[in-house]
């Protein structure tokens, strides 16, 4: 892993020094998603798609890759994940908008590589759903080998997580924390309370916004005054009010969806995406009227009471009703659903009868629009970032495999190379284990020497605070 990281870093360093060699993916089935599907080629230059079509001009010195029989799609975008994070929930308070998952990115999480192997190139890494208003999210590109900030897609619009229903109200009864300490109940304990928390937070945000406006107008007039105290919790909420920050709201039931849309309308802000939104099909018209997007699962439900009244036609119904819809993984840990979002998309053709292009849009251009990054990614168009996936078969087939993945024109996954490297990696690991064993033996021998004291038993130490590590 570390060796891989260094290799890639070295490769990238070279890339900075010289302009990237142009690449042509030739004679593939190109699924542009926005401009049709055809037999043709894609040209990549300096990280961007510079040409696409049935006939393309091969730039001088370009590396031509014969992709006949292969399928090329834009990199898959997962609109809701928790992978590659050392910390997911700040669940202690009902409004945790002062925290950001960007602080907790783990660029060494193997889930990034797993995502790549499944054709996912961009993810929306979200805070958890423990509270009505959660922390700030970050959009990441799966640039395996880069450091935390190197993964961040800086062009993405900032966002924040909201959560409705069972998760944010669960602590309303008190009980115990994960370490067994008894907890006083955390407000709210009902769906009504969740609404109240959001309303209260935005009321505070409005007051805060007004206080700064007042201060700034005094300043402009040259009058000196003490500025308001900068509040990291309220700043992002003011950005929501001003339309500068996207709201991604975890929700299930139709009633809570309507509640949130009404609260947002009342305070004059928009919900960018309703996440999970399993009962979205019941209120698709209202969602459409508000202008929110929907990011749901293909056929995953029943894992808790609020997730029962679901149908596999949800994505298709929402799409037909004109709601901007995507499919997501909600992955935690090593990544699972995000490694096969292509087949998740394929299911919508069976349930709800979406066509191939509509199905692919659910995991490419639609989530790109929902995250405000459709100018850069989400389809195969000239001028967009060269995030491309090469499949050996039709990407919506469960028999297809990802062969190559490009992000910004750089190849981050190569199935052949991966398979070829496995035995070398196994050998490296075996070598390290044997080295350790040999060291152990020699130190045992040294300890057995007459005259030497036996190793002292380590005394039990009290629990120590863990330092700088992950906490989930």
């Amino acid at each position, binding site marked *: 892993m*570390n060796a891989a990281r260094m290799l890639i870093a070295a490769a990238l360093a070279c890339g900075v020094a010289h302009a990237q060699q142009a690449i042509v993916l030739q004679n593939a089935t190109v699924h542009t998603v926005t401009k049709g599907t055809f037999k043709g080629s894609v040209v990549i230059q300096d990280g961007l798609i510079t040409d696409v079509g049935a006939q393309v001009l091969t730039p001088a010195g370009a590396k031509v890759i014969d992709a006949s029989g292969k399928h090329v799609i834009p990199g898959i975008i997962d609109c809701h994940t928790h992978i590659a994070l050392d910390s997911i929930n700040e669940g202690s308070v009902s409004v945790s908008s*002062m925290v950001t998952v960007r602080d907790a990115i783990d660029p060494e999480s193997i889930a990034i590589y797993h995502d790549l192997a499944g054709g996912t190139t961009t993810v929306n890494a979200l805070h958890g759903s423990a509270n009505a208003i959660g922390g700030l999210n970050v959009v990441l590109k799966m640039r395996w080998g880069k450091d935390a900030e190197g993964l961040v897609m800086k062009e993405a619009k900032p966002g924040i997580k909201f959560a409705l229903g069972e998760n944010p109200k669960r602590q309303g009864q008190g009980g115990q924390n994960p370490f067994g300490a008894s907890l006083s109940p955390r407000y709210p304990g009902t769906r009504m309370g969740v609404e109240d928390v959001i309303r209260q937070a935005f009321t505070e945000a409005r007051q805060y916004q007004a206080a700064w406006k007042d201060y700034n107008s005094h300043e402009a007039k040259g009058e000196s005054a003490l500025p308001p105290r900068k509040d*990291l919790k309220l700043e992002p909420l003011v950005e929501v009010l001003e339309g500068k920050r996207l709201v991604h709201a975890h929700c299930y039931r139709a009633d809570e969806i309507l509640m949130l849309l009404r609260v947002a309308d009342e305070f004059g802000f928009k919900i960018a995406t309703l996440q999970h939104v399993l009962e979205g099909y019941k209120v698709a018209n209202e969602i459409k009227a508000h202008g929110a997007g929907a990011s749901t699962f293909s056929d995953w439900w029943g894992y808790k009471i609020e997730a029962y009244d679901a149908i596999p036609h949800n994505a298709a119904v929402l799409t037909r009703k004109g709601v901007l819809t995507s499919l997501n993984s909600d992955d935690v840990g090593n990544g699972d659903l995000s490694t096969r979002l292509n087949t998740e998309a394929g299911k919508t053709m069976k349930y709800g009868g979406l066509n191939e292009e509509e199905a692919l849009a659910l995991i490419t251009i639609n989530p790109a629009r929902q995250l405000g990054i459709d100018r850069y990614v989400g389809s195969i168009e000239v001028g967009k970032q060269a995030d491309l996936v090469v499949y050996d078969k039709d990407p919506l087939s469960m028999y297809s495999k990802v062969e190559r993945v490009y992000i910004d024109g750089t190849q981050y996954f190569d199935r052949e190379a991966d398979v070829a490297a496995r035995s070398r990696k196994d050998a490296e690991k075996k070598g390290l284990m044997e080295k350790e064993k040999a060291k152990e033996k020699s130190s045992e021998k040294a300890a057995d020497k007459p005259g030497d004291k036996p190793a002292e038993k380590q005394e039990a130490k009290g629990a120590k605070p863990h330092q700088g590590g992950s906490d989930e």
Partner: protein
Amino acid sequence: MNKRLFAFTALFLAAAGLLTAASPPHLAIRGARVFTVSGAVLEHGTVLLKDGLIEAVGEGIAIPAGVTVIDGTGLNVYPGLIDALSAWGIPETVPAAPAAPAAAATPGQGQQQPPPQPRVRGPEDRPNAFTWVKAADLVKPSEKQIETARSAGFTTAVTFPKQGILAGHGAVINLGGETGGEMVLDPAAGLYTSVTTRGFGTFPGSLMGVMAYLRQLWIDAAYYKLAREAYARDPVTNPRPAYDRALEGLLDTHRLLLPATSRVQIERMLRFGAEFKTPFVLYGGQSAYETVSELKRAGVPVILNVKWPLKEKDSDPEEIPSMKTLQLRDKAPTTPVALAAAGVPFAVCSEGLDAPKDVIKALKKSIDLGLKPADAIRALTLSAAEIYGLSGRLGSIEKGKLANLTITKGDLFDDKTTVSMIFVDGKKYVPAPEAPTPPRQGGAKSPEVGQ
């Protein structure tokens, strides 16, 4: 100067018990191998100590009459060793009596739950911030670790309170002296931070919560200062800011200690530390061999934890550790080698080790892997002094520096070497005879019972 008056004063001070501690003997160590650290090694060096300071050092320097002479033949003289991060000298606070076992001992009675604590609302409640706590106020010369550490060759330690996220201010202390106050060389060594989280129970419950909390605290401290100044200028128009001890303590911070062990943590904390206008140091740093260039670029020193990770004893022989774990266990002891080669300043600390002398053993492991002994000595002396801004007084054998010396029979890193004497502020100490391994705590007091 009136001789009689001086004599009188001296007599008076002696009677008051002040002078005995303040007048170490005028002495010379002659013909020893002197590791000055700041300069060359003197094969037949002489070190003159007077009034707790190094009066002179060199080869073939004249020894004034009446000076006590110690024959240094066969001895190595090092600057007093410095442990860069510990809790030495701070008495352990008595933990609150656990309520649960008593209740459980009564059969038939259900477990009595302690009343739930009120919830922390957020940064405004200043949870786990003890910035008003100062190690300098807590150190006691009677603490047992002081003698243990001194006997292992340490003359100086940087000691920190450890409870909480912002645990309080550390102090650079000499491991000798009659009172706590006498030991303190710098009461503002730095503010110790740790990522202490308790899940959903109380804010901050996560790594990102801790980071957001620290950011808000720094914003609040700057604002507090502003509001206080505005109020001092004009108490009629400006509101009176409420006194806040957490922010008062924060405003006194000149150096921040941030925890970072893995590569990801080091990179994270380098970015995070740069947000504050306070200089910072990383502690932990075992994976720093992977991040030397980042550390070098940032100009951030490392206080290296030298408890090298090992395969756990009695671990499942069938278990296959991850590649990352194997690499860390293989490479961690090479971290000092990499840091020294890159010129990243680093010191070492005893945190997590059983005994202070294990710091030296751990560095020996690194020497076997390529660390130059001179770099190892520097990490134990001058580098630590530089990191804490005390290189004018500590860390090398130079004229005018504190007479803190560690004298060994044989090379410091040799297994068979023993510490023959230690000087702290010019006062000579001999190492305590090594105590036999204390018997394990008796059953009656064992804390494991009932858990």
